């Protein structure tokens, strides 16, 4: 998901915790603190909801050491350098039985022009392929079609000896902003595992970090009801990020330092899909509105099902759950379903098939994230 969706999801989580804490401590205590004493506790949810990406893209990225860096310039484009370096790194990881990292830098030409090149791992033939592509413009990545290099200058291959395990798309594009990096791990069975942007979705995207950050709540508000509320908001806000990310393909490393690999995601959606982002944000905004109504002294709207079942705020839990269910079915789901089917219908009519293979989609997701443009 984009940073904004994470931020909103964090805020939404916070509002749910406020509703629960409000009932737990009674007397509308937490809500009054927010509405009347203007305590900014809910923002913590948003801040810690976006924090995992902040950690990765503002810190973890820079802490990554690289054994090799490939840095080409427009007037000296050499695909062999790219292919050879990667092949060398793979073998080195195998031979020296250690992790070897390679950074592929982008080729910037002007403020909005970049030279694109691609890298491909052919695991069957044990080859690394590199192709220099066209110059592209800006974020839209449109190619200047007369800037392709001649085939013989653009293509290079390099062989490696080790067995390579690579789970991503065949072709990796290197184009704008920061380039991607690869990490090669020697595995116990003697093969080498390639990891793409190794610093991302590791310790920063973990359940463990959420627990570590949570006590900040006590630092802000002491061991008071507000402090406890903040504790849960921070922890669950942080986790909300990991959970939403998990609906994508890449997954996260959940329990460092006890685990070291990323657990694959649920593969429901791609993080950059506008539709997925819009739906998530819509749902979050509506849930925030629902919760604000639920904790206010006067309910500005009531749901018909709760009224039908004669539920009032006297029996808060039942009233809340029935109303929420009703709200979701009346207001959240229908617009999303209508929009979804409209888009599906539109795409079918126009004959657009954007269905990507798992591997392709996963690479694309990571590439889109790597530039940092998502946050």
């Amino acid at each position, binding site marked *: 998901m984009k940073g*904004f*969706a994470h931020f909103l999801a964090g805020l939404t989580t916070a509002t749910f915790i406020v509703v629960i804490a409000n009932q737990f401590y009674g007397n509308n205590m937490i809500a009054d603190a927010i509405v009347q004493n203007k305590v900014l506790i*809910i923002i913590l949810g948003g801040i810690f909801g976006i924090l995992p990406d*902040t950690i990765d893209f*503002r810190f973890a990225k820079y802490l990554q050491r690289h054994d090799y860096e490939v840095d080409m310039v427009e007037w000296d484009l050499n695909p062999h350098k790219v292919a050879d370096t990667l092949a060398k790194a793979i073998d080195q990881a195998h031979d020296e039985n250690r992790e070897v990292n390679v950074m592929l830098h982008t080729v910037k030409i002007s403020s909005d022009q970049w030279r694109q090149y691609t890298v491909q791992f052919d695991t069957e033939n044990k080859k690394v392929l590199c192709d220099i592509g066209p110059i592209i413009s800006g*974020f839209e990545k449109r190619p200047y079609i007369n800037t392709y290099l001649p085939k013989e200058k653009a293509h290079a291959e390099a062989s490696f000896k080790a067995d390579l395990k690579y789970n991503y798309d065949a072709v990796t594009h290197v184009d704008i902003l*920061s380039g991607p990096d690869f990490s090669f791990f020697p595995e116990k069975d003697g093969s080498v595992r390639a990891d793409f942007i190794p610093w991302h979705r590791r310790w920063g995207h973990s359940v463990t970090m959420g627990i570590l950050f949570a006590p900040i709540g006590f630092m802000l508000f002491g061991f008071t009801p507000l402090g406890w509320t903040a504790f849960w908001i921070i922890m669950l806000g942080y986790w909300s990020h990991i959970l939403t990310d998990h609906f994508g393909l890449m997954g996260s490393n959940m329990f460092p330092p006890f685990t070291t690999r990323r657990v694959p995601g649920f593969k429901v959606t791609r993080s950059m899909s506008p539709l997925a982002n*819009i739906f998530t944000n819509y749902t979050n905004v509506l849930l925030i509105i629902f919760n*604000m109504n639920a904790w206010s002294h006067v309910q500005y709207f009531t749901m018909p099902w709760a009224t039908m079942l004669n539920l009032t705020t006297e029996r808060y839990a039942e009233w809340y759950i029935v109303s929420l269910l009703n709200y979701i079915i009346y207001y959240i789901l229908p617009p999303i379903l209508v929009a979804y089917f409209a888009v599906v219908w539109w795409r079918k009519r126009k004959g657009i098939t954007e269905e990507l293979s798992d591997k392709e989609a996963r690479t694309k997701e990571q590439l889109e994230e790597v530039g940092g443009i998502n*946050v």
Partner: protein
Amino acid sequence: MMLTYLLMCILFVLLGTLVGSALSMLPGLHVYNVIGFFLLFYFTMGLVLDPMLMVLMLIGMLVSYAFVFTIPSIYFSAPDDSTMFVLMPSQRYLKEKKGHEAVVLIATGALIGVMAITIFVPIFMGVLGVVWDLAISNIHWIIGAVIAFMLLSEFPKDFGRHKNPLHGLKEAWKTILAGYLTFFLAGLLGVITFSKTLIPAGHAFQSLMAPLIGLFATSSIILNLISKYEIPEQNMPKSVDVRPREIVHGSVAGSVGGLFAAFIPAVTAGVGGYMSSHAFAQQGDKSFLVSMGASRVVYYVGAIALFFLPTLHLRRGALAMGINLFFTPETVQQFYLVDAGIALAGVISFFVVIYASKFLARYIPKVNPKTLNIVVLVILIILVYLMTSWQGLIIMSIATAIGLVPVLFNSRRSHCLAVILVPIWLNMAGISLAPLLGLW
């Protein structure tokens, strides 16, 4: 209602649109400054004019401003507070000889924004009322969240080349910290301007003019003056390079952002548009330009539509507050008149923008950009001096210095909007910094 009255209404809308269009061509002149003068004039006239006619004229001016300001912001590069997000793509368009295309895209967004205001806002009237009732008691943390997001989403603009982790962190955090510094300084300037009017009392209602012109206009003009560039011959295409999907995506995102800005105090079109471009996962210049056109119109004009919206009557934006001094909207009929006026002014402004842009695209490249920038700078200085006297000029210089920080360090210029965001937020959250600064 009398037919003659209806015709008078249409006449006043036309009058306002034409006056507004002409004045909005002046770089740096904000419509609120002009409206301020019109209001003063109106009060001294002793309110002889029917207030509804006056309202319709002001609406005509506002709508035309929301459209026509695109012209100076693209051709003279003197963006106001809400155009700065467009600035980068629009400068690129100008450089690529597609200035007119950029204008058309923004105007299209604005056009759809007007449709959103006149067609969709009334449909969601009831919902807006409920949401407003809920939002009003939570506004402090909502604005706080907007600020938090703006700060957290500032990202490093290095390209991954660094010698060691420390060097990398330094490179990365240079732009981020420059952004935070801008935010802090602009916020401080805002707190000072809001809590103590530094300019003469007679000009008090223009108090935000000097900081805004300094932060957004003069700073970029200075940048234009020190950097080497020239305006190439502009193409005059009969079609625009955009897909309907991009127009729809951009205008929906822009309208939602503009509505958010019109709804929540302290949030301006720039911030609203920025938030919604994230919320709608926008990509690409075209949908961005379209969305900016939409968000500006929905922000400025939507504020008025919300003010006249039966059951809501939200008083947001300087025009709504100004109108409220002499008029309280309440009937459905007034609302119909206002929406009719907005739609009419929208159509006229759209054509004004397109034809003005055609004219300028032809003649602007013949002008030396340095001369153009100096002329604009002089106009701005004269305007600020006339409206806020010499104290305003000092504030403008300080603001210019702050406005240069993000430009020089490549961080986001939206941080300058802290000048409005921070003081209003502090006020809403019940935090008073003024005593700390020794202002009371």
